[in-house]
């Protein structure tokens, strides 16, 4: 029983530490850019990533809220694809994005990233002229995977502590009966 209590306390402490760390991590934001206005414009009816390209760089994004500030001098179609969806698009040119937005000119979007993964920012120029675009992304808020990990660890820890306490109480109740017997 002592070991179960100890494991429970350790798990609870681990959960509490992860929770504290996830709040600490939420205080800092991650910023990155995709595209620059006035530099390498996107040609008419073309993608920012060549299909079948192998040297494309994705972003590793944490499951946080992402604020995207999109700026263009015309309109663009904008898709966010995970690794599997990107492979599908690369091989079959079939689009199954996690998030999409078509005919964007200038706007601010908020996206909830579902899980920690590699994401590709796919942009298409549907117009007949070259387009400059810039997307400034900011990741903020709690990382949901760490939050869930902390909740699960604390819950299991508390359950283990509770089970060991119940066993200890039952043993205490049994002892006087055994003595009287």
């Amino acid at each position, binding site marked *: 029983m002592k070991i179960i209590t*100890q494991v429970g*306390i*350790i798990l609870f*402490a*681990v959960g*509490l*530490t*992860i929770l*504290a*760390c*996830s709040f*600490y*991590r939420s205080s*800092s934001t*991650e910023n*990155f850019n995709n595209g620059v206005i006035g530099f390498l414009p996107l040609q008419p009816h073309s993608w920012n990533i060549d299909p079948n390209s192998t040297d494309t*760089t*994705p*972003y*590793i*994004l*944490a499951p946080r809220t992402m604020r995207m500030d999109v700026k263009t001098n015309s309109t663009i179609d904008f898709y966010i694809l995970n690794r599997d969806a990107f492979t599908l698009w690369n091989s079959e040119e079939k689009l199954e994005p996690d998030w999409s937005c078509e005919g964007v000119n200038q706007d601010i979007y908020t996206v909830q990233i579902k899980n*920690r*993964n*590699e994401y590709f920012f796919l942009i298409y120029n549907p117009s007949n002229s070259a387009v400059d675009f810039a997307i400034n992304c900011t990741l903020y808020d709690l990382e949901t995977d*760490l939050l869930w990990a902390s909740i699960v660890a604390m819950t299991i820890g508390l359950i283990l502590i509770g089970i060991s306490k119940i066993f200890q109480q039952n043993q205490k109740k049994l002892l006087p009966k055994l003595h009287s017997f």
Partner: protein
Amino acid sequence: MRSKKTFFNLLRWEFEEHYSLPILVFLISSAIILVLAQSNLNIHPERNFINLYNKSGSIFFILTIIGSAFFSRTFAGSIEKGKLKLLLSYPIKRWQLFFSKFSAMFIPLFIIYGTAFSINIYLDHLRPLEPLFFLSLFAFLLHLMVVSSVSISLSMVIKNEILSMMASILLIIGIENLFSIPNFFSTEGRLTYQFQYFGELSHNIKPFGDDFIVTSGDVIVTFLIPILIFSSLFVLSFIYFKRFMEID
């Protein structure tokens, strides 16, 4: 068979003595905080292995402090408090005591910090068998070996828990900060050589630029230095403890 049983009993006793619950919880929590409190600087998959290098510096620093504290406590502390004298009044051999003390401190510390560091595989979305993750783990192992050997040898000489702890912390942190990175004398300096070499070998990327050229000979030296420090200090401490140390 009996000496093996005595050794494992000593090992368990040392573990229970030094890793009681609040201390164990503190160690695990501190290791998790060390990993999670640092942000991921590289968010591109081809360069995310460099995050391991950026995050290892603080682990080396904390391992120096915690390692020095634990090894000084178990060796110098037991001499100072008379526990060693009491233990040696039982039919226990000195080598059993020495190795049980060393193993009971070394193995849990490495497991706790190594396991906490492995959270980075998930956080940085690294490959499960990322070679540079194992290189970082090996660097922790070598650093802990150096810290343990310095602390044990100072404990043998000083025989005072606080003084030997302070002396080993100041000595190791002093050497770590004496030279500019990269160098062969500090753990982080040596890791810079190793990351540059193995980064190019496994990822075809030189993390610290093309101007910094590292040869295989440099990398062998970076591994040999801590191994030589550990083996010489550890063997000397063991011989002194087994043959010459008077416990009154």
